[in-house]
């Protein structure tokens, strides 16, 4: 169970976006186009998981990708991968949008959003994505129920840990801790470095 899951070509697959983003930082639009092809799918999937609404998701995804171009010079490969940098930015923007919409929208719509689990039907049936998904699913199964729900509600749905606690009827401290140890367990299962 503790053995990290790896795909043999992973190292190459991950170094590529790093090089492309570094190149894009120098104003290379061709490199950015190639980077786009690698990351647009994951960014869209993550943003849509949080926002649900297709047109809003597309809008935010576009904003994120343009921001990746604009801020490319801030990326430092020594501190983490381009994919992590981009996905973190995407999640941030999706969550910001969800929360500002949330402040305006009624609770009913919120409840509808919470009700759905990630929609795998829309997921690309591409080998790499499928392998990734199987690994993630496998690793998610190694978590306890509360760990798994805390991680997926916070990350896939963009909820604050307070909202997660409310939803799961768990004390705040429990959710806070489960969120952390759930992610740590996933880190070890997926064999992730910083």
């Amino acid at each position, binding site marked *: 169970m503790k053995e990290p899951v790896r795909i043999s070509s992973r190292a190459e697959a991950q170094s590529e976006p790093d090089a492309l983003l570094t190149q894009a*930082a120098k*104003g290379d*639009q061709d490199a*950015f*186009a190639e980077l*786009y092809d690698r990351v*647009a*799918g*994951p960014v*869209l*999937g993550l943003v*849509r*998981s949080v926002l649900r609404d297709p047109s809003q998701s*597309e809008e935010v*995804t*576009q904003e994120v*990708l*343009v*921001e990746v*171009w*604009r*801020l*490319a*010079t*801030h990326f*430092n490969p020594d*501190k*983490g*991968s381009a*994919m*992590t940098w981009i*996905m*973190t930015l*995407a*999640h*941030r923007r999706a*969550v910001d949008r969800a929360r500002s919409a949330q402040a305006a929208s009624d609770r009913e719509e919120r409840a509808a959003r919470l009700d759905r689990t990630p929609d795998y039907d829309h*997921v690309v049936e591409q080998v790499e*994505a499928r392998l*990734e998904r199987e*690994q*993630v699913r496998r690793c998610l199964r190694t978590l306890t129920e509360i760990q798994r729900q805390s*991680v997926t509600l*916070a*990350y896939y749905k963009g909820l*604050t*840990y*307070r909202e*997660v606690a409310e939803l799961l009827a768990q004390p705040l401290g429990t959710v*806070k*801790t489960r*969120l*952390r140890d759930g*992610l*740590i367990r*996933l880190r070890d299962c*997926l064999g*992730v*470095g*910083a």
Partner: protein
Amino acid sequence: MTRTTTELHTLTGAYAVHALQPDEEAAFERHLGDCAACSVEVAELRATAARVGLALAEQPSPRMRAEVLHRIGEVRQEPPPRQQPPSDAPGTDTPRGLRRRAARTWPTFALAACLAVAAGFGGVAVWQYQRAEQAQESGQSAQNRAARLAEVLSAPDARTVPAKDLPGGGSGTVVVSRDQDRAAFVASRLPRAPEGKTYQLWYADHGTMRSAGLMDASSDDAWLLEGPLGRASGMGITVEPSGGSTKPTSEPVVLVNFPAQQA
């Protein structure tokens, strides 16, 4: 603010996935400035979350591609951030985090703040207690060792040196206190030594390696180097047969120079 720093440290997970409220987030970012270990953990958990996110990939429309590639032709790229010294180069912070200069340095008290004194005077005691619990079977000596370790980590003159590229991709930090005449090694995700082998600590002492004990208990993440620092100029770790050796018998997996002594 009544929240203690120990509580803040447990927020790395929630922070990594943007699950904090704005006020909590701001408080945690201030804490990150003093806690290098927290920064490392946040980076790892973000990388983990990104992997979890890849599983959701969808097929974007060709129209979106055309639109984005068109738009970047009209967007000016930000100039590179001002050059930082190489040892504390800017990280993969999100743009929101870019203002967080302090988080990227290794302040003298980073580890002390994180591991020992962060929660105020209670922190050291709690942490020592946990370590003593872990090493229960070794009895009193383990407690003494834990106490000494806490003293080194929280020493006002403690200096830290990152130890990169540990086996298995782990990372570590060496903490040196000249006043305490001691050094400690803190590791993150150091893999278990191979079967029948053990990690051994050494002081680099004017060209010779002086044994500083074995890194035995695999549940530990911090070790006090045995013996006084003396005039040692650095430290190293080798993989040795169980029980250790009197001299290193393999290439060091870690070799770190201590910071120059201050005049």
